[in-house]
Structure formats: C-alpha cells, structure tokens
C-alpha cells in the first residue's frame, strides 16, 4: 500500500513538474508549485471519490 502511494506521488509529481515548468521561472518555485498543485488536485479527487461513494451508499446500494 505504502509502495503504491509513494509511486503515485512520484509519478504524479513528475507529471505536475513537466506541466508547471512553464508557469514559473526559477526551479525552486516550480518544485513548490508542482507539489502544491499535485496535493490540491489529489485532495479534490479523493473528496470527489468519497462523495460518489457516499451517494452510492445512500441511494443505490444502501444496504
């Protein structure tokens, strides 16, 4: 489980870094921005997943 989470963070961070490199000029700011964006969108994805799971529990398979 830990291995998968770390892999996700590594691959996700590299993707984020590749994309946000064009947004900032200094490498340190790029590293920071890409990490923050990754965390932000990961948090939104987890929240959305939980909301969908909750809706399913409430309305589709309540028992």
């Amino acid at each position, binding site marked *: 489980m830990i291995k998968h989470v770390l892999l996700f963070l590594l691959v996700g961070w*590299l993707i984020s870094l590749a994309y946000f490199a064009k947004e900032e000029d200094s490498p340190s700011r790029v590293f920071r921005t890409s990490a923050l964006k990754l965390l932000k969108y990961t948090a939104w994805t987890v929240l959305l997943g939980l909301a969908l799971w909750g809706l399913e529990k409430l309305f589709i398979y309540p028992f």
Partner: protein
Amino acid sequence: MDAEQAKAKQKPRKAGFFATVFASPPSILTLMVPGLGHLYLGRAKRGVLWFLLVEALFFAGYAILGVRLWGGGMNLGTTVWGLPLNYIPEVGNFLTTFLTLKATFPLQGAPGWMDAVGLAKLPVPWEHVGFLLTALSGILNVFAAADAWWLARVEKTEGEKDPWLSTPTGAAFLSWLVPGLGQWKLGYKSRGTVQFGSITLLFLLGLVFSDFTAVDRSQVYFWYAGMLFDGGSTILSTLFFAPLRFHNTGSTMWDLGVTTTCIAGLMNVAVFLDAYTLAEKRKEAAP
C-alpha cells in the same frame, strides 16, 4: 455612438484553434501531401526537402514492413473514416498513407483479403525499425504543416529569413527531440532543464516498470503513438529495447510502465508547444 464607433471599439477577436488550422490552406495542403503547402507559398526548395524527407521515411519503413504496416490498427477498419484513428501517427502524412493502404491492401471481403489479413498480423524481421520509420514520417509531416503555417503568417509581413531551427517550428522540433532543448536554445535554461529532467525521468521510470519492454509498437500499437511525442527517448528505446523478448505475465507494473511512458510522451506535447509559444513571442517582439 454610431455603429462604426462601436465597431472600432471592439477588440479584434483572436482566431481559435480550428479557425487557425483549417482556414490555412498551406498547413492543410502539407498535411495532405508533404511540402505542398510550401509550394503553394512559393517556397519550392523547402517544400521539396520536406517532401523527400517525409516520403523517404515512409517508404523506407514500408520497404521493411510491407503489408505488416496495416496490421497494427486494422481492427478498426481500413476505410478513409477509420484512417485517422487506425494509423496514428502515420496519418499525419495523410494522402500517402491512404493511397498506399488502398493500393496494397484488398478491400474487406475482396479476393485475397483473408490472406492479406494473415500477412498483416505476421511479424517480419526488423519490424520495430520499419514501424518507427513510418511513424516518424507522420510526426515530421505535422512539423512540416506547422512550418508551412508559420511561413504563411510571416510572409505577409517581412518574410522568414532565419535558419529553420530558430523559427517557432524549429524550437518545437528541438523540444520534441529532447524535452526542453528548444527552451534551452531560446535562453530559458532552468525551465528547459526542469522539463528535460521530469519528462526523461518519467519515461525512464516507465521503462524500468515494464522491464524495458514498454516501447514496442507491435505490442502496444496505440500507446506508442503517445510515446512518440517524446521523440528522442522513443527512438532510442525502440532501437535498443524493442527487440527484447516480451514477457507480459499480466503484471500491473507492466501496465503502469506502458501508461507512464505514454504519459511522458503526452506531457512533452505541452513542452514543445511551450517552446513554440516562446519562440513565437520572441519573433513578435523582435524589431
């Protein structure tokens, strides 16, 4: 305020992507036949060079593959409507791909069709090189179309006299070949270094996850089209690793490897478009 004043006050609207590409005869012509757009613009020498380069790549690949070329994407059909999906990225060189397909592969249900399907599925020696060459012809023709579009734009003003690599298309090409190289050449060195590091590391991770077998077009036909946007890494990996014996035991790590290399390629699209934009802004700012 009368109508004319109101009209003068309106900001000029910037053309969108489709209007830019599809209302530009030079780029459409070049997407159909390599170099035709350049010929249309009166740049015959440049057009002939593009034509020779793109067609040489396509037919060198076809000489190795024969009808095997059509084996990868044939499951979706071999009609003109299926072509843009089936034969990516060759379809960047549209008319050559379409006419060669029609000339060398029988129609579905026609005599000899079943034999041709069998041959198209049968591996041939050096097919990794053949598949790479035909794929490169499609990718390079997209750069040729972008070059024609750029020439059409600057011809209206002062004309393009600079060497090709210093044009926006040249910068994009450099970043396609080595992520960040176009930015590096334009003076954005730290940006280019971060882009190179992140995309190349992502690609290498994908190779490691898949035991170095992810970049094999005969196995992962459609994924390969995405990988090829990271040109240099994919060319080298194809030449060195595609002939390796392939073991897919259903491992999720292998799947992750294929996905990661493909994502590295697709992320490089953002990088080479960024190089294009930077070079374009520099040209616009130049006196």
